[in-house]
Protein backbone atom coordinates (compact mmCIF):
# COMPACT_ATOMS: atom_id res chain seq x y z
CA UNK A 1 0.00 0.00 0.00
CA UNK A 2 1.30 3.46 -0.83
CA UNK A 3 2.13 5.58 2.17
CA UNK A 4 1.16 9.10 3.20
CA UNK A 5 3.07 11.43 5.51
CA UNK A 6 1.93 12.65 8.91
CA UNK A 7 3.19 16.22 9.11
CA UNK A 8 1.48 17.33 12.30
CA UNK A 9 -0.39 16.06 15.36
CA UNK A 10 -2.35 18.10 17.87
CA UNK A 11 -4.72 17.65 20.77
CA UNK A 12 -6.95 19.60 23.10
CA UNK A 13 -6.53 18.12 26.59
CA UNK A 14 -9.14 15.58 27.67
CA UNK A 15 -11.42 16.50 30.57
CA UNK A 16 -15.03 17.12 31.43
CA UNK A 17 -14.98 20.72 30.26
CA UNK A 18 -18.62 20.97 29.18
CA UNK A 19 -17.93 23.38 26.32
CA UNK A 20 -18.85 23.20 22.62
CA UNK A 21 -17.02 20.28 20.97
CA UNK A 22 -16.05 22.59 18.10
CA UNK A 23 -13.70 24.47 20.43
CA UNK A 24 -11.73 21.32 21.16
CA UNK A 25 -11.55 20.36 17.50
CA UNK A 26 -10.38 23.79 16.43
CA UNK A 27 -7.74 23.93 19.20
CA UNK A 28 -6.45 20.51 18.17
CA UNK A 29 -6.45 21.45 14.47
CA UNK A 30 -4.50 24.67 15.10
CA UNK A 31 -2.07 22.71 17.24
CA UNK A 32 -1.57 20.15 14.47
CA UNK A 33 -1.11 22.83 11.78
CA UNK A 34 1.48 24.62 13.93
CA UNK A 35 3.22 21.33 14.64
CA UNK A 36 3.30 20.61 10.90
CA UNK A 37 4.39 24.09 9.90
CA UNK A 38 1.63 23.94 7.28
CA UNK A 39 -0.36 26.97 6.19
CA UNK A 40 -4.09 26.31 6.60
CA UNK A 41 -4.59 27.66 3.06
CA UNK A 42 -2.71 24.61 1.77
CA UNK A 43 -5.27 22.19 3.28
CA UNK A 44 -7.39 20.92 0.39
CA UNK A 45 -9.50 18.45 2.33
CA UNK A 46 -11.02 18.49 5.82
CA UNK A 47 -11.99 15.07 7.11
CA UNK A 48 -14.16 15.22 10.24
CA UNK A 49 -14.97 12.40 12.63
CA UNK A 50 -18.62 12.68 13.62
CA UNK A 51 -20.11 13.01 17.09
CA UNK A 52 -23.75 11.96 17.47
CA UNK A 53 -24.18 13.62 20.87
CA UNK A 54 -23.85 17.28 19.90
CA UNK A 55 -26.69 17.85 17.43
CA UNK A 56 -26.50 18.62 13.71
CA UNK A 57 -23.09 20.34 13.84
CA UNK A 58 -21.73 17.02 15.11
CA UNK A 59 -23.17 15.08 12.16
CA UNK A 60 -21.42 17.41 9.71
CA UNK A 61 -18.21 17.60 11.73
CA UNK A 62 -15.98 18.20 8.69
CA UNK A 63 -17.98 21.29 7.79
CA UNK A 64 -18.28 22.46 11.40
CA UNK A 65 -14.52 22.41 11.93
CA UNK A 66 -13.79 23.91 8.50
CA UNK A 67 -16.16 26.83 9.07
CA UNK A 68 -14.82 27.46 12.57
CA UNK A 69 -11.31 27.60 11.10
CA UNK A 70 -12.65 29.70 8.21
CA UNK A 71 -14.10 28.30 4.97
CA UNK A 72 -11.50 28.15 2.20
CA UNK A 73 -13.37 26.11 -0.39
CA UNK A 74 -11.65 22.93 0.79
CA UNK A 75 -13.44 19.67 0.08
CA UNK A 76 -15.16 18.08 3.08
CA UNK A 77 -16.18 14.71 4.45
CA UNK A 78 -17.67 13.60 7.76
CA UNK A 79 -17.35 9.98 8.88
CA UNK A 80 -19.12 8.01 11.56
CA UNK A 81 -18.20 4.50 12.63
CA UNK A 82 -18.66 4.78 16.40
CA UNK A 83 -15.36 4.47 18.30
CA UNK A 84 -13.59 3.80 14.99
CA UNK A 85 -14.69 7.13 13.46
CA UNK A 86 -11.28 8.75 13.75
CA UNK A 87 -9.56 5.97 11.85
CA UNK A 88 -12.26 6.10 9.19
CA UNK A 89 -11.74 9.84 8.82
CA UNK A 90 -8.00 9.20 8.40
CA UNK A 91 -8.70 6.49 5.84
CA UNK A 92 -10.96 8.81 3.83
CA UNK A 93 -8.18 11.41 3.86
CA UNK A 94 -5.64 8.81 2.72
CA UNK A 95 -7.89 7.83 -0.19
CA UNK A 96 -8.26 11.48 -1.17
CA UNK A 97 -4.49 11.96 -1.13
CA UNK A 98 -3.52 8.71 -2.86
CA UNK A 99 -6.10 9.32 -5.59
CA UNK A 100 -4.38 12.62 -6.28
CA UNK A 101 -7.47 14.68 -5.49
CA UNK A 102 -5.77 16.54 -2.61
CA UNK A 103 -2.20 17.07 -1.48
CA UNK A 104 -2.81 18.00 2.15
CA UNK A 105 -5.66 16.96 4.45
CA UNK A 106 -6.69 17.89 7.97
CA UNK A 107 -8.28 15.09 10.04
CA UNK A 108 -10.19 16.24 13.13
CA UNK A 109 -12.37 14.63 15.80
CA UNK A 110 -13.81 16.12 18.99
CA UNK A 111 -16.58 15.38 21.44
CA UNK A 112 -18.52 16.75 24.38
CA UNK A 113 -19.98 13.85 26.37
CA UNK A 114 -22.81 13.58 28.89
CA UNK A 115 -22.23 12.18 32.36
CA UNK A 116 -22.72 8.48 33.06
CA UNK A 117 -23.51 5.55 30.76
CA UNK A 118 -23.70 6.18 27.04
CA UNK A 119 -27.36 5.40 26.23
CA UNK A 120 -29.47 5.18 23.07
CA UNK A 121 -31.57 7.98 21.62
CA UNK A 122 -34.94 8.60 23.23
CA UNK A 123 -38.27 7.20 22.03
CA UNK A 124 -39.60 3.65 21.64
CA UNK A 125 -37.66 2.02 18.80
CA UNK A 126 -38.08 -1.79 18.82
CA UNK A 127 -36.42 -2.06 15.38
CA UNK A 128 -33.17 -0.63 16.78
CA UNK A 129 -30.83 -3.20 18.33
CA UNK A 130 -29.16 -0.48 20.36
CA UNK A 131 -32.54 0.29 21.94
CA UNK A 132 -33.49 -3.37 22.40
CA UNK A 133 -30.32 -4.30 24.26
CA UNK A 134 -30.88 -1.57 26.84
CA UNK A 135 -34.63 -2.04 27.15
CA UNK A 136 -34.88 -5.84 27.31
CA UNK A 137 -31.55 -6.91 28.77
CA UNK A 138 -30.10 -3.83 30.49
CA UNK A 139 -27.00 -4.53 28.43
CA UNK A 140 -24.93 -1.35 28.86
CA UNK A 141 -21.49 -1.18 27.27
CA UNK A 142 -19.81 -2.35 30.51
CA UNK A 143 -22.04 -5.46 30.46
CA UNK A 144 -20.27 -6.58 27.28
CA UNK A 145 -16.89 -5.69 28.80
CA UNK A 146 -17.79 -7.75 31.86
CA UNK A 147 -18.81 -10.76 29.76
CA UNK A 148 -15.47 -10.78 27.97
CA UNK A 149 -13.49 -10.26 31.17
CA UNK A 150 -15.27 -13.17 32.88
CA UNK A 151 -14.69 -15.35 29.82
CA UNK A 152 -10.96 -14.52 30.01
CA UNK A 153 -10.87 -15.59 33.67
CA UNK A 154 -12.60 -18.84 32.86
CA UNK A 155 -10.59 -19.71 29.75
CA UNK A 156 -7.13 -18.54 30.77
CA UNK A 157 -7.14 -18.20 34.54
CA UNK A 158 -6.86 -14.41 34.48
CA UNK A 159 -7.46 -12.78 37.85
CA UNK A 160 -9.05 -9.49 38.83
CA UNK A 161 -5.57 -8.44 39.97
CA UNK A 162 -4.32 -8.94 36.41
CA UNK A 163 -6.99 -6.54 35.21
CA UNK A 164 -6.10 -4.11 37.99
CA UNK A 165 -2.43 -4.31 37.02
CA UNK A 166 -3.31 -3.03 33.53
CA UNK A 167 -4.91 0.03 35.12
CA UNK A 168 -1.92 0.53 37.42
CA UNK A 169 0.54 0.29 34.52
CA UNK A 170 -1.40 2.69 32.32
CA UNK A 171 -1.89 5.18 35.15
CA UNK A 172 1.89 5.31 35.58
CA UNK A 173 2.19 6.09 31.86
CA UNK A 174 -0.62 8.66 31.85
CA UNK A 175 0.90 10.53 34.78
CA UNK A 176 3.42 11.92 32.28
CA UNK A 177 0.87 12.98 29.67
CA UNK A 178 -0.27 16.63 29.72
CA UNK A 179 -3.26 15.75 27.49
CA UNK A 180 -4.58 13.02 29.79
CA UNK A 181 -7.59 13.67 32.03
CA UNK A 182 -6.58 11.35 34.87
CA UNK A 183 -2.96 11.71 35.90
CA UNK A 184 -3.10 10.08 39.33
CA UNK A 185 -0.82 7.06 39.73
CA UNK A 186 -2.97 4.23 41.05
CA UNK A 187 -1.91 1.20 43.05
CA UNK A 188 -3.50 -2.26 43.08
CA UNK A 189 -5.45 -1.48 46.24
CA UNK A 190 -7.06 1.57 44.62
CA UNK A 191 -8.51 -0.65 41.91
CA UNK A 192 -9.41 -3.47 44.32
CA UNK A 193 -11.28 -1.02 46.54
CA UNK A 194 -13.22 0.74 43.80
CA UNK A 195 -16.87 -0.33 43.48
CA UNK A 196 -17.90 -3.19 41.20
CA UNK A 197 -19.61 -1.91 38.04
CA UNK A 198 -20.01 -5.01 35.86
CA UNK A 199 -18.69 -8.00 37.73
CA UNK A 200 -15.77 -8.83 37.60
CA UNK A 201 -14.87 -5.29 36.51
CA UNK A 202 -14.61 -2.40 38.93
CA UNK A 203 -14.98 1.33 38.41
CA UNK A 204 -11.25 1.82 37.85
CA UNK A 205 -11.19 -1.04 35.31
CA UNK A 206 -13.66 0.76 33.04
CA UNK A 207 -12.97 3.88 31.02
CA UNK A 208 -14.96 7.05 31.61
CA UNK A 209 -16.39 9.30 28.90
CA UNK A 210 -14.59 12.59 28.31
CA UNK A 211 -14.49 15.79 26.32
CA UNK A 212 -11.47 16.20 24.06
CA UNK A 213 -10.20 16.83 20.58
CA UNK A 214 -7.42 15.45 18.34
CA UNK A 215 -6.19 16.32 14.87
CA UNK A 216 -3.65 15.26 12.24
CA UNK A 217 -2.21 17.02 9.20
CA UNK A 218 -1.39 14.46 6.49
CA UNK A 219 -0.05 14.81 2.97
CA UNK A 220 1.28 12.90 0.00
CA UNK A 221 4.91 11.80 0.30
CA UNK A 222 5.75 14.04 -2.68
CA UNK A 223 4.21 17.15 -1.11
CA UNK A 224 6.03 16.42 2.14
CA UNK A 225 9.37 16.06 0.37
CA UNK A 226 8.81 19.21 -1.71
CA UNK A 227 8.04 21.18 1.43
CA UNK A 228 11.07 20.23 3.47
CA UNK A 229 9.76 17.27 5.50
CA UNK A 230 12.71 14.95 4.95
CA UNK A 231 11.87 12.07 7.29
CA UNK A 232 8.21 12.28 8.29
CA UNK A 233 6.32 9.62 10.20
CA UNK A 234 4.37 7.66 7.58
CA UNK A 235 1.01 5.92 7.62
CA UNK A 236 1.90 2.42 6.41
CA UNK A 237 -1.46 0.71 6.86
CA UNK A 238 -5.04 1.42 7.83
CA UNK A 239 -7.65 -1.22 8.59
CA UNK A 240 -11.37 -0.56 8.83
CA UNK A 241 -12.53 -4.17 8.47
CA UNK A 242 -15.89 -5.63 9.51
CA UNK A 243 -16.61 -9.14 10.84
CA UNK A 244 -16.78 -12.16 8.55
CA UNK A 245 -19.84 -14.43 8.73
CA UNK A 246 -20.31 -16.54 10.77
CA UNK A 247 -18.84 -14.66 13.74
CA UNK A 248 -19.41 -16.60 16.98
CA UNK A 249 -18.29 -13.90 19.44
CA UNK A 250 -20.98 -11.77 21.09
CA UNK A 251 -20.25 -8.08 20.82
CA UNK A 252 -21.75 -4.62 21.12
CA UNK A 253 -24.64 -3.95 20.54
CA UNK A 254 -26.00 -7.31 19.39
CA UNK A 255 -28.43 -9.62 21.21
CA UNK A 256 -27.08 -12.74 19.51
CA UNK A 257 -24.17 -14.04 17.46
CA UNK A 258 -24.24 -15.85 14.16
CA UNK A 259 -24.92 -19.59 14.29
CA UNK A 260 -22.21 -22.23 13.94
CA UNK A 261 -24.73 -25.06 13.45
CA UNK A 262 -24.35 -25.10 9.69
CA UNK A 263 -20.82 -23.85 9.09
CA UNK A 264 -17.52 -23.41 10.90
CA UNK A 265 -16.42 -20.00 12.15
CA UNK A 266 -14.25 -17.88 9.88
CA UNK A 267 -10.61 -18.96 10.18
CA UNK A 268 -9.58 -15.55 11.52
CA UNK A 269 -11.80 -14.00 14.19
CA UNK A 270 -13.05 -10.44 13.81
CA UNK A 271 -10.80 -8.90 16.45
CA UNK A 272 -7.78 -10.75 15.04
CA UNK A 273 -8.65 -9.61 11.51
CA UNK A 274 -8.44 -5.93 12.47
CA UNK A 275 -4.69 -5.83 13.03
CA UNK A 276 -4.07 -8.49 10.37
CA UNK A 277 -5.37 -6.20 7.64
CA UNK A 278 -3.13 -3.33 8.79
CA UNK A 279 -0.09 -5.62 8.98
CA UNK A 280 -0.75 -6.84 5.43
CA UNK A 281 -1.02 -3.31 4.06
CA UNK A 282 2.21 -2.29 5.79
CA UNK A 283 4.10 -5.47 4.87
CA UNK A 284 4.92 -5.84 8.56
CA UNK A 285 4.08 -8.26 11.35
CA UNK A 286 3.74 -8.29 15.13
CA UNK A 287 7.48 -8.89 15.57
CA UNK A 288 8.19 -5.53 13.91
CA UNK A 289 6.11 -3.51 16.38
CA UNK A 290 7.93 -1.34 18.93
CA UNK A 291 4.96 0.38 20.56
CA UNK A 292 1.17 0.01 20.55
CA UNK A 293 -1.87 2.06 21.50
CA UNK A 294 -4.81 -0.30 22.10
CA UNK A 295 -8.41 0.41 23.01
CA UNK A 296 -8.70 -0.33 26.73
CA UNK A 297 -12.41 0.36 27.15
CA UNK A 298 -11.82 -2.03 30.02
CA UNK A 299 -8.53 -3.11 31.56
CA UNK A 300 -9.30 -6.72 30.61
CA UNK A 301 -9.82 -5.72 27.00
CA UNK A 302 -6.21 -4.53 26.78
CA UNK A 303 -5.11 -8.10 27.50
CA UNK A 304 -7.36 -9.42 24.71
CA UNK A 305 -5.69 -7.05 22.25
CA UNK A 306 -2.17 -8.36 23.05
CA UNK A 307 -3.31 -11.68 21.65
CA UNK A 308 -5.49 -10.31 18.88
CA UNK A 309 -2.56 -8.21 17.59
CA UNK A 310 -0.28 -11.26 17.65
CA UNK A 311 2.03 -10.06 20.44
CA UNK A 312 1.57 -13.46 22.12
CA UNK A 313 -0.50 -16.62 21.82
CA UNK A 314 -4.02 -16.86 23.24
CA UNK A 315 -3.88 -17.11 27.02
CA UNK A 316 -0.39 -15.60 27.36
CA UNK A 317 -1.30 -11.93 27.74
CA UNK A 318 -1.21 -12.04 31.54
CA UNK A 319 2.36 -13.32 31.40
CA UNK A 320 3.40 -10.41 29.13
CA UNK A 321 1.82 -7.99 31.57
CA UNK A 322 3.28 -9.59 34.70
CA UNK A 323 6.76 -9.71 33.13
CA UNK A 324 6.60 -5.98 32.50
CA UNK A 325 6.93 -6.43 28.74
CA UNK A 326 4.11 -3.97 28.03
CA UNK A 327 5.23 -1.20 30.41
CA UNK A 328 7.44 1.64 29.22
CA UNK A 329 10.96 0.22 29.42
CA UNK A 330 9.68 -3.25 28.55
CA UNK A 331 9.99 -5.20 25.31
CA UNK A 332 6.78 -3.89 23.73
CA UNK A 333 5.20 -0.98 25.60
CA UNK A 334 1.42 -0.76 25.25
CA UNK A 335 -0.53 2.44 25.86
CA UNK A 336 2.39 4.73 26.73
CA UNK A 337 -0.15 7.59 26.50
CA UNK A 338 -1.98 6.13 29.48
CA UNK A 339 -4.69 4.72 27.22
CA UNK A 340 -8.39 5.18 27.70
CA UNK A 341 -7.93 4.51 31.39
CA UNK A 342 -6.08 7.83 31.67
CA UNK A 343 -8.11 9.70 29.04
CA UNK A 344 -11.69 8.50 29.22
CA UNK A 345 -13.26 8.09 25.83
CA UNK A 346 -14.04 11.05 23.58
CA UNK A 347 -15.49 8.85 20.86
CA UNK A 348 -14.67 10.59 17.54
CA UNK A 349 -11.33 11.92 18.81
CA UNK A 350 -10.00 8.77 20.40
CA UNK A 351 -8.71 6.83 17.37
CA UNK A 352 -7.03 10.04 16.17
CA UNK A 353 -5.49 10.57 19.62
CA UNK A 354 -4.01 7.06 19.42
CA UNK A 355 -2.28 8.07 16.18
CA UNK A 356 -1.09 11.37 17.70
CA UNK A 357 0.65 9.47 20.49
CA UNK A 358 2.42 7.19 18.04
CA UNK A 359 3.54 10.18 15.95
CA UNK A 360 5.23 11.68 19.01
CA UNK A 361 6.68 8.31 20.00
CA UNK A 362 8.15 7.69 16.54
CA UNK A 363 9.57 11.21 16.40
CA UNK A 364 11.17 10.64 19.80
CA UNK A 365 9.43 13.66 21.33
CA UNK A 366 7.21 11.91 23.91
CA UNK A 367 9.25 13.15 26.88
CA UNK A 368 8.99 11.16 30.11
CA UNK A 369 6.82 8.51 28.44
CA UNK A 370 9.16 7.99 25.47
CA UNK A 371 9.59 4.42 24.21
CA UNK A 372 13.26 4.36 23.30
CA UNK A 373 14.08 3.77 19.65
CA UNK A 374 10.49 3.24 18.49
CA UNK A 375 10.29 2.97 14.69
CA UNK A 376 7.02 1.08 14.15
CA UNK A 377 3.77 1.56 16.04
CA UNK A 378 0.28 0.14 15.75
CA UNK A 379 -3.08 1.37 17.03
CA UNK A 380 -6.15 -0.81 17.38
CA UNK A 381 -9.72 0.03 18.18
CA UNK A 382 -13.20 -1.29 17.66
CA UNK A 383 -16.45 0.58 17.23
CA UNK A 384 -19.79 -1.01 17.97
CA UNK A 385 -21.80 -2.39 15.04
CA UNK A 386 -18.73 -4.19 13.67
CA UNK A 387 -16.28 -1.35 13.02
CA UNK A 388 -12.67 -2.46 13.27
CA UNK A 389 -9.87 0.08 13.12
CA UNK A 390 -6.12 -0.15 13.16
CA UNK A 391 -3.37 2.17 11.95
CA UNK A 392 0.30 1.32 11.49
CA UNK A 393 2.83 4.14 11.54
CA UNK A 394 6.51 3.88 10.79
CA UNK A 395 9.53 6.01 10.44
Amino acid sequence: MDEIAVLGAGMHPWGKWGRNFTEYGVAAARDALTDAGVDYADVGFVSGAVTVRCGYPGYVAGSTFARALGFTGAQLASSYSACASGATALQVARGQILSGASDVALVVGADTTPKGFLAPHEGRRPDDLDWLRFHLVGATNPVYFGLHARRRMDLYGATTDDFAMVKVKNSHHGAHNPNARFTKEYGLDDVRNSPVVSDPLRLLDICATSDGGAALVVSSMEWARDHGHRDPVRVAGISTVSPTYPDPVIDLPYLATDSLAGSAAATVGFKESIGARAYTEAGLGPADVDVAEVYDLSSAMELDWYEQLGFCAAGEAERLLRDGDTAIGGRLPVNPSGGLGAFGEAVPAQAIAQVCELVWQLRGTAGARQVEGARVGITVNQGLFGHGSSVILRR
Partner: protein
Amino acid sequence: MPAVEGLFTLDGDEPRLIGGRVPGTESYFFPRHLGGADPRVGPVELEEVLLSRRGRVWSYTTSHYPPPPPFVVTSEPYEPITVAAVELEDERMVVLGQCIAGVGPDDLEVGMEVELTTDILYSDDDHDYLVWKWRPVAPADREG
Protein backbone atom coordinates in the same frame (compact mmCIF):
# COMPACT_ATOMS: atom_id res chain seq x y z
CA MET B 1 -47.91 -9.31 27.21
CA PRO B 2 -44.40 -9.29 25.73
CA ALA B 3 -42.41 -6.10 26.24
CA VAL B 4 -41.63 -6.22 22.52
CA GLU B 5 -43.73 -8.24 20.05
CA GLY B 6 -42.32 -10.96 17.82
CA LEU B 7 -39.18 -11.95 19.71
CA PHE B 8 -40.44 -14.86 21.81
CA THR B 9 -43.49 -17.06 22.39
CA LEU B 10 -45.43 -17.15 25.65
CA ASP B 11 -46.37 -20.83 25.78
CA GLY B 12 -46.82 -21.55 29.46
CA ASP B 13 -43.74 -23.13 30.96
CA GLU B 14 -41.97 -23.52 27.65
CA PRO B 15 -41.40 -20.12 26.04
CA ARG B 16 -39.21 -20.05 22.95
CA LEU B 17 -37.18 -17.39 21.20
CA ILE B 18 -38.44 -16.68 17.67
CA GLY B 19 -35.53 -16.76 15.23
CA GLY B 20 -35.04 -16.81 11.50
CA ARG B 21 -33.45 -19.47 9.33
CA VAL B 22 -32.28 -19.55 5.73
CA PRO B 23 -34.67 -22.19 4.31
CA GLY B 24 -33.02 -25.58 3.90
CA THR B 25 -29.92 -24.63 5.93
CA GLU B 26 -28.72 -24.49 9.53
CA SER B 27 -28.05 -20.74 9.43
CA TYR B 28 -30.05 -19.15 12.26
CA PHE B 29 -30.56 -15.52 13.24
CA PHE B 30 -31.98 -13.67 16.23
CA PRO B 31 -33.96 -11.49 16.21
CA ARG B 32 -35.31 -12.78 12.92
CA HIS B 33 -35.27 -9.43 11.12
CA LEU B 34 -32.36 -7.81 12.94
CA GLY B 35 -29.90 -10.68 13.23
CA GLY B 36 -27.92 -10.22 10.02
CA ALA B 37 -27.66 -12.56 7.03
CA ASP B 38 -25.56 -15.29 5.48
CA PRO B 39 -23.65 -13.60 2.64
CA ARG B 40 -23.19 -16.89 0.80
CA VAL B 41 -26.85 -17.19 -0.11
CA GLY B 42 -28.78 -14.74 -2.24
CA PRO B 43 -31.59 -12.55 -0.98
CA VAL B 44 -34.02 -14.92 0.75
CA GLU B 45 -36.91 -14.51 3.14
CA LEU B 46 -35.83 -16.07 6.43
CA GLU B 47 -38.31 -18.65 7.66
CA GLU B 48 -39.55 -18.30 11.22
CA VAL B 49 -38.23 -20.95 13.61
CA LEU B 50 -38.45 -21.48 17.34
CA LEU B 51 -34.96 -21.73 18.83
CA SER B 52 -33.89 -24.37 21.34
CA ARG B 53 -34.80 -23.60 24.94
CA ARG B 54 -31.59 -24.86 26.46
CA GLY B 55 -27.99 -23.87 26.18
CA ARG B 56 -24.75 -23.48 28.06
CA VAL B 57 -23.38 -20.35 29.67
CA TRP B 58 -20.70 -18.70 27.50
CA SER B 59 -20.15 -15.93 30.03
CA TYR B 60 -22.00 -13.77 32.56
CA THR B 61 -21.80 -10.48 34.42
CA THR B 62 -23.72 -8.58 37.08
CA SER B 63 -24.55 -4.88 36.77
CA HIS B 64 -24.15 -3.13 40.11
CA TYR B 65 -25.42 0.20 38.77
CA PRO B 66 -28.91 0.61 37.29
CA PRO B 67 -28.85 0.72 33.48
CA PRO B 68 -30.15 3.98 31.98
CA PRO B 69 -33.48 4.28 30.08
CA PRO B 70 -34.93 2.66 28.04
CA PHE B 71 -34.26 0.05 30.74
CA VAL B 72 -36.94 0.30 33.42
CA VAL B 73 -35.64 -0.08 36.96
CA THR B 74 -38.36 -1.81 39.00
CA SER B 75 -36.75 -2.33 42.40
CA GLU B 76 -36.09 0.39 44.96
CA PRO B 77 -33.33 0.29 45.97
CA TYR B 78 -31.94 -1.14 42.74
CA GLU B 79 -31.20 -4.88 42.87
CA PRO B 80 -28.19 -5.79 40.68
CA ILE B 81 -29.22 -7.67 37.54
CA THR B 82 -27.20 -10.54 36.13
CA VAL B 83 -26.86 -11.00 32.37
CA ALA B 84 -25.80 -14.28 30.78
CA ALA B 85 -24.57 -14.99 27.26
CA VAL B 86 -25.77 -18.49 26.44
CA GLU B 87 -24.77 -20.76 23.55
CA LEU B 88 -27.94 -22.48 22.36
CA GLU B 89 -27.73 -26.24 22.16
CA ASP B 90 -28.87 -26.84 18.58
CA GLU B 91 -28.19 -23.57 16.82
CA ARG B 92 -24.74 -22.99 18.36
CA MET B 93 -25.37 -19.28 18.57
CA VAL B 94 -24.87 -17.12 21.68
CA VAL B 95 -27.91 -15.19 22.93
CA LEU B 96 -27.96 -12.55 25.68
CA GLY B 97 -30.58 -12.41 28.37
CA GLN B 98 -31.11 -11.44 31.97
CA CYS B 99 -31.03 -14.21 34.54
CA ILE B 100 -34.04 -14.66 36.80
CA ALA B 101 -34.01 -12.75 40.09
CA GLY B 102 -31.89 -14.37 42.76
CA VAL B 103 -29.28 -15.75 40.32
CA GLY B 104 -25.92 -14.01 40.70
CA PRO B 105 -22.33 -14.66 39.70
CA ASP B 106 -21.84 -17.17 42.50
CA ASP B 107 -24.62 -19.31 41.03
CA LEU B 108 -23.15 -19.43 37.51
CA GLU B 109 -20.15 -20.84 35.75
CA VAL B 110 -19.08 -21.03 32.12
CA GLY B 111 -20.45 -24.21 30.53
CA MET B 112 -23.36 -24.54 32.96
CA GLU B 113 -26.71 -25.60 31.50
CA VAL B 114 -29.52 -23.04 31.57
CA GLU B 115 -32.98 -22.83 30.06
CA LEU B 116 -35.32 -20.15 28.83
CA THR B 117 -38.18 -18.82 30.90
CA THR B 118 -40.14 -15.59 30.96
CA ASP B 119 -40.42 -13.02 33.71
CA ILE B 120 -41.84 -9.56 34.28
CA LEU B 121 -39.59 -6.83 32.87
CA TYR B 122 -41.83 -4.04 34.23
CA SER B 123 -45.50 -3.34 34.87
CA ASP B 124 -47.92 -0.45 34.51
CA ASP B 125 -51.55 -0.06 35.62
CA ASP B 126 -52.83 -2.22 32.77
CA HIS B 127 -50.25 -4.87 32.04
CA ASP B 128 -47.24 -6.87 33.04
CA TYR B 129 -44.63 -6.61 30.30
CA LEU B 130 -42.65 -9.84 29.90
CA VAL B 131 -39.19 -10.68 28.64
CA TRP B 132 -37.17 -13.87 28.20
CA LYS B 133 -34.72 -14.73 30.95
CA TRP B 134 -32.27 -17.54 31.69
CA ARG B 135 -32.53 -19.82 34.70
CA PRO B 136 -30.24 -22.67 35.76
CA VAL B 137 -31.54 -26.12 34.87
CA ALA B 138 -32.53 -28.05 37.99
CA PRO B 139 -29.85 -30.67 38.78
CA ALA B 140 -32.24 -33.59 38.17
CA ASP B 141 -32.97 -32.34 34.65
CA ARG B 142 -29.40 -31.71 33.55
CA GLU B 143 -27.96 -33.58 30.62
CA GLY B 144 -24.59 -33.80 32.37
